[in-house]
């Protein structure tokens, strides 16, 4: 059995999708969390391929880049998609989500209060609704984005909306199929367990 060691900051952030995938696949792993203030001293001596975290150590080999790691774990968990085409559709939906995710993160990280309020309004009115309408169209009646079973694109969507609904609570109201996707992810036994047990962090 391979051993997995995930190293990231003590936040959900870029590692949470990976953690959700380990949970959904019921794959044990070491969840190493580094505090922000410790990173500057650890960085030069850490064995990170590109000097950044998260990293995943698999039997001594280190992989970097959060989405590359997530795709790797999704593969191990059988959540990539059944065919090449399904896998490509899952990739495509995740890529499409990342553009919106980037704008959201920029808004959250904005330090200037009035700029942040402006960005928050703009995101909520201009970017989020068309994205949700588009993805409601992509979701199947069965509450899955790809095929007829859970894939990492469902989990990726859930994870992103977990962050977004913290700032925009009613965002998913009325989106029947998207809510079904969310329910499917939340009711996966491994995910349900992780959601109950995971450390509570601001980001």
């Amino acid at each position: 059995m391979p051993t997995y060691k995930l190293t990231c900051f003590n936040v959900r952030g870029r590692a949470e999708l990976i953690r959700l995938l380990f949970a959904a696949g019921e794959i044990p792993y070491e969840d190493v969390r580094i505090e922000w203030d410790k990173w500057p001293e650890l960085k030069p001596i850490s064995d990170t391929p590109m000097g950044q975290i998260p990293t995943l150590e698999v039997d001594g080999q280190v992989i970097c880049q959060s989405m590359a790691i997530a795709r790797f774990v999704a593969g191990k968990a059988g959540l990539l998609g059944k065919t090449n085409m399904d896998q490509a559709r899952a990739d495509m939906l995740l890529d499409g989500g990342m553009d919106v995710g980037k704008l959201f993160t920029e808004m959250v990280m904005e330090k200037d209060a009035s700029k942040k309020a402006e960005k928050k309004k703009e995101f909520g009115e201009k970017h989020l609704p068309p994205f949700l309408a588009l993805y409601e169209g992509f979701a199947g009646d069965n509450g899955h984005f790809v095929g007829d079973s859970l894939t990492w694109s469902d989990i990726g969507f859930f994870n992103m909306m977990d962050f977004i609904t913290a700032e925009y609570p009613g965002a998913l109201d009325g989106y029947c199929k998207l809510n079904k996707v969310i329910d499917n992810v939340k009711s996966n036994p491994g995910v349900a367990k992780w959601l109950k047990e995971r450390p509570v962090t601001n980001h």
Partner: protein
Amino acid sequence: MAPKYKLTYFDARARGEPTRLLFAAAGVEYEDVRLSREEWEALKPSTPMGVIPILEVDGVTLCQSMSIARFVARETGLDGKTRLERAQADAFVDELEELVPKLAGLLLFTTDEKEKEEKAKLLDQMIAEKFGRCEKLSGSEGHLVGNSLLWCDLVFYNIAYNIEELYKAGTLQSYPKLAKVYDTVKANPRIAKWVAERPAGIVNI
């Protein structure tokens, strides 16, 4: 009989070229559709996410350039031999992809001289960081990952081509392993043929 794959993009290299390079390397026929601005505006509403490139195959339309490239890589056996190799290839692509909009932004969309200078400084920094990281991790035999051509080599080649040919020739001299990857792709007979024959494009990027 019509080819199985139909790629639609602008008449440029940019985000369509990695997939074109893949088809070339694999020796797989495809329809290489290049749209004018007007044709794009007309097609846009019927595309999955209102962006190109798109790839049509077996009645399904894919979008998002790297998802398309990864799909074609998988179809043609150029994605990596093991899960680990595929993850390493993905990591190189994710690291390098951020250079694409920065390069295009500076070369195509910036006219003010002062702004150009500032953007160039930031781009140089980004290239140094990213090429530095990739140099550290790259294989030494002319391939980023493992010992054969993978899609990450082609993604890298496409970006490095624009840097060497349009921005700062000689950049790769500081990165010997990456330079070897570049030369290995360039020398691949199918790639060399495609590069010699490919349309110049309506814009050189």
